[in-house]
């Protein structure tokens, strides 16, 4: 089981802040492909992954990052702090 978190417009587009999923995805990219196939709102949110950033267990990561042993994956747009 992996907790998936969504922030900013990704959260709004998908319609929820977090969910727990059962997945065999080996990488973040595999997980994205799985989510895209679920429903239209996921397909829309993940249409262009170059517009998204990902954190794996609360550290910024790449979309080819492995998911073995991972507990939390977060998807969000580029950050706008400061």
């Amino acid at each position, binding site marked *: 089981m992996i907790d998936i978190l969504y*922030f*900013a*417009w990704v959260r709004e587009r998908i319609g929820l802040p977090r969910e727990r999923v059962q997945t065999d995805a080996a990488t973040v990219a595999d997980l994205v492909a799985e989510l895209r196939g679920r429903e239209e709102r996921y397909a829309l949110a993940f249409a262009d992954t170059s517009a998204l950033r990902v954190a794996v267990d*609360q*550290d910024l990561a790449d979309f080819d990052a492995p998911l073995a042993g991972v507990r939390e994956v977060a998807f969000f747009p580029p*950050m706008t*702090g*400061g």
Partner: protein
Amino acid sequence: MTVRVQTAAFDMGAELNAFSEGLEAGAVVSFTGLVRDAGRMVAMEIEHYPAMTERAITAIVQEATARWSLERALVIHRHGRLMVGEPIMMVATAARHRAGAFQAAEFLMDYLKSRAPFWKKEIGAEGEVWVEAKASDEDALTRW
């Protein structure tokens, strides 16, 4: 090193006085970011990723501290709903000489902009819009 992520407003003068007390360093630089009125804007809503925010900022501050041998460093960043003119965030650095204090503060600002998990939304009279990251923000990181 002090990192605070909070909804409450802060007094930048009081923060800077407390930060500077008893320092051995000869240079203190600070930056405060305010909510700017981007035309017909009433407020700004700042979302963040609680489990990651402090940890990401702490890593950035640790790097700045090591690189410029800072005696002290402070980052305060707010989240939640902020009105136009309110302070959003503040950075302060204390180093032996001013060049180090200035550079460390700029480094912290550049990294906080695109590596700390905050997202700004402008709340206007006619609707809400997420602030988009600028390519220049990302480019700014390459100079470090």
